[in-house]
């Protein structure tokens, strides 16, 4: 079942923050976050496996709620390089395929 991703699009000024949400109607095995720039491969950002988990690097972090049905991606002090489309991909069982949300188009302006 496809996760619901929101918002669909965000426009930010450099230095502003954004939150992208990904939710499922059922508990998940894992959530994967990717960023894709036009014409390029989706780039893996991070994976969350445990309920209540939070992880991140630089100014991009993510959380996975206790019930493992919702994940949020946090972009703080955004940079121009953050622009792109962000996808959450969910896995129901270990080793299974990713089911992607509809994507969030993020544009960071100077």
């Amino acid at each position: 079942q496809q996760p619901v991703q929101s918002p669909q699009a965000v426009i930010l000024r450099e230095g502003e923050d954004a939150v992208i949400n990904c939710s499922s109607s059922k508990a998940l095995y894992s959530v994967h976050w990717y960023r894709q720039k036009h014409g390029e491969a989706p780039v893996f950002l991070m994976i969350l496996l445990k309920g209540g988990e939070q992880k991140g690097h630089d100014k991009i972090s993510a959380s996975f709620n206790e019930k493992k049905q919702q994940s949020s991606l946090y972009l703080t002090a955004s940079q121009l390089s953050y622009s792109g489309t962000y996808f959450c991909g969910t896995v129901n069982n270990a080793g299974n395929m990713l089911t992607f949300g509809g994507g969030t188009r993020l544009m960071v302006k100077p």
Partner: protein
Amino acid sequence: EAGVTQFPSHSVIEKGQTVTLRCDPISGHDNLYWYRRVMGKEIKFLLHFVKESKQDESGMPNNRFLAERTGGTYSTLKVQPAELEDSGVYFCASRRDSYNEQFFGPGTRLTVL
């Protein structure tokens, strides 16, 4: 190490023709996945190989699509005959066994006229 590579990057064919897409996974990754993104829609799973075996092909749209992975290395996805609705970007991803991360290739943009 080299990432996932896909060939060609773009392909434009006419309805009824045949096209073959190729994916070279990261060396040592036994798991290989094909996904497709039709314009304006989400990325959707097509099938999953473990080495040369098809683990899950539940996402394949119909029997015009044939995927192979002879020898468990690179994979091909053939569309024969192509239809207009097959247009989109076809992604390949690979994963090392016992790890969770899937690494994506740049995709092949297929346009069927």
